[in-house]
């Protein structure tokens, strides 16, 4: 027995019937791709993208500050700038972003800010994990480049079309919440954006992870080291009265004597390369104060801000 139509006829049928659909879909995707190229949109559920985009805007428009915070997501999440300002009786602004923009990106933030204001104190807060990012990661994430050319990471065709349709049309229309606990805490990317714009910082909404005894070792990648001279140059140009490096805390169950030894060595290396003074603020926090290895919970952030204020007081 055989089927009633040949494979040639099947192919002809499919082209005839599905062809118009495919043609219109191609036109739609093509148009979205062109739109993406002309005016790329940050992915609506990309928390890091929202942070970088907003902080770039803030860097140009932030008010004058006595203390300016720079650094990775631990700087963004572990310190409450408003509370720190109250404790120090000073104006504190945060332009902290994420680890993947690296020292070059942090330098760019400072550079933009310095065109308008001069902060007497610059605080660079970095987590150990940010010291060990590889070159391929900086390139792949594209966030560092974004801070330099002021443009979201390029995507290969037709990924740009996908993101543009999602970001410009579907996500705003559908009001999709951010992924995971961020969605529960902040709702949509719009709300997260407003939060960063207003405060220059965020709270990691995750609950403390299960305790694990895995001592951490501080290491500095060659890619990170190679980016330090640029940051050193910009800090030097900004001419602050005080420029300090702080290594943000680890959960205490991730730390042993060797962790602390490698921490001090890393701090010395980085602060020397940048020409900053190292400020040794509490190196570990109770695991229940941590939302992740790199970020603190809301309570942990409050405690750490108090420790930081105490260390900063003359």
């Amino acid at each position, binding site marked *: 027995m055989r*089927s009633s139509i040949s*494979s040639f006829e099947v192919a002809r049928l499919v082209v005839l019937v599905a062809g118009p659909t495919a043609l219109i879909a191609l036109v739609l995707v093509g148009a979205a791709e062109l739109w993406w190229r002309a005016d790329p949109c940050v992915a609506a559920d990309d928390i890091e993208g929202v942070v970088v985009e907003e902080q770039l805007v803030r860097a140009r428009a932030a008010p004058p500050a006595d203390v300016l915070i720079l650094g990775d997501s631990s700087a963004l999440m572990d310190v409450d700038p408003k509370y720190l300002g109250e404790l120090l009786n000073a104006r504190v602004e945060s332009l902290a972003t994420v680890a993947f923009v690296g020292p070059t990106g942090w330098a760019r933030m400072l550079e933009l800010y310095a065109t308008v204001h001069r902060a007497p104190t610059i605080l660079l807060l970095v987590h150990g994990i940010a010291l060990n990012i590889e070159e391929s990661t900086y390139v792949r994430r594209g966030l560092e480049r974004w801070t330099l050319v002021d443009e979201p990471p390029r995507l290969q065709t037709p990924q740009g079309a996908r993101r543009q349709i999602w970001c410009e049309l579907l996500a705003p229309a559908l009001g999709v919440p951010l992924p995971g606990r961020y969605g529960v805490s902040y709702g949509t990317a719009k709300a997260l954006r407003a939060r960063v714009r207003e405060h220059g910082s965020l709270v990691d909404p995750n609950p403390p992870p299960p305790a694990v005894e895995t001592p951490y070792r501080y290491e500095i990648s060659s890619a990170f080291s190679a980016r330090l001279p640029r940051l050193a140059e910009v800090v030097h140009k900004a001419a602050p009265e005080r420029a300090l490096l702080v290594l943000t805390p680890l959960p205490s169950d991730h730390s042993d004597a060797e962790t602390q030894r490698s921490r001090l060595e890393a701090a010395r290396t980085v602060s020397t390369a940048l020409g900053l003074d190292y400020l040794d603020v509490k190196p570990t926090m109770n695991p229940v104060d941590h939302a992740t290895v790199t970020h603190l919970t809301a309570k942990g952030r409050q405690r750490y801000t108090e420790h930081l204020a105490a260390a900063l007081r003359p």
Partner: protein
Amino acid sequence: MVFDSTAFMIFFAAFFAFYHLLYRWLNAQNVLILAGSYLFYGWWDWRFLGLLTLSAGVDYIAGLAMSTLDGARQRKLILMLSLATNLIILFTFKYFDFFATSLQAALSSLGIHASLPLLNVVLPVGISFYTFQSMAYTIDVYRRDIPAERNPLVYFCFVSFFPQLVAGPIERAGHMIGQMRAPRELTADKVKEAVWLLSWGYFLKEVIADTAATFADEAFRVDQTSGWMTILGTLAFSLQIYCDFNAYSCIARGTAKLLGFELVWNFRLPYFATSIQDFWRRWHISLSSWLRDYLYISLGGNRKGPRRTYVNLILTMLLGGLWHGAAWNFVLWGLLHGFALAVNRAFTASGRSMHSIPGWMLTMMIVLLGWLLFRCTSWEMLKAMTLALGDLAWTERHGEILSSLIILTGPVALIEAWQRWRDDLLAPLRLDVWRLAALNAVLLTASYAMFDRFHYAFIYFQF
């Protein structure tokens, strides 16, 4: 392999091309269906292919044995052996740990501390679907509704046919085996219908169901304290589960159609139902008709008086609930529907009737309450979600979720209102070529933009 994966897209494109190249040889096409179906299923976990083969093999042999025997007792014995094999497989892999832990908890509450062994086995995907499909075959052969299938290739193709293997529709041998034997015909109308079903199915899954799932996840939490989140979460889940499952059924129908097969409709606009009985004629039709034909009628149906009818309805729905999974929330969900069907039957038996609008509202209340039970994965969650109803303070976030749900419901409501108005589930096919193409293209482009964004598995895979 799942429908919303790149692996499936590549697999199906290659399968479709190769399948139609074999148009001269029906047996070769069937061999390809069987090989493709085993690849499709084994992609997830090849070890469970043995289970699928065992279930199908036992029923194939049982069918043959029943066809050669005339003695009623011998035929019944073979049927029992076949059903027992399938039910043991199902019980072992799906229910053993549930009953063992429930028994352990019950004994513990009586002060008896027993440590019962647990199997801790992974639930094979689609086990409830293919065992029910295979069991229906042996029952049909036993009842002499259909002849036994002698060709093992045809029979194994029927049980393992990949478009509907893991999440239905649960097909009947009387409907499918004839198609497995006959030459496949692909016409322009069939391709047109398949393209529509695939476009609509992927849109329902990628855009509607998965987005609704994010709101349901936001709401269904053990620490929920907002009554509005309970209400909005239940609405979100009702949209998610319908669109998710209907999407699977549409994609299954569409892919089967491209291979020249006709699968049954699994949904007929269930949220337009004006009574709970009407709902079950429209929701998961292949399961509800299975339960009616092989369980409810076997229990005596409505032939043994009103009281027994009510008991049969409740028992059938209780087992229908358990079919979904080994958990108390499914038992409660089944009981709720069973009681509602019994009350509905008593109401109509008394000669009374309800206007369609209050009937619809009451039906939806029951259905929504059912989805609340269905989605709560623990007693703690059910307790928190219920107690939260005491706090009905409205916040900005509730407004955002509500407006999102309205926007998500919009396209589904529009298409379904059109289908209902035309009394035709394929109403969109009445559009002219370019309008239909534009509609399909918009749906597919939106699905493409959201493809793989949320990573939600099809809900009915777990059953």
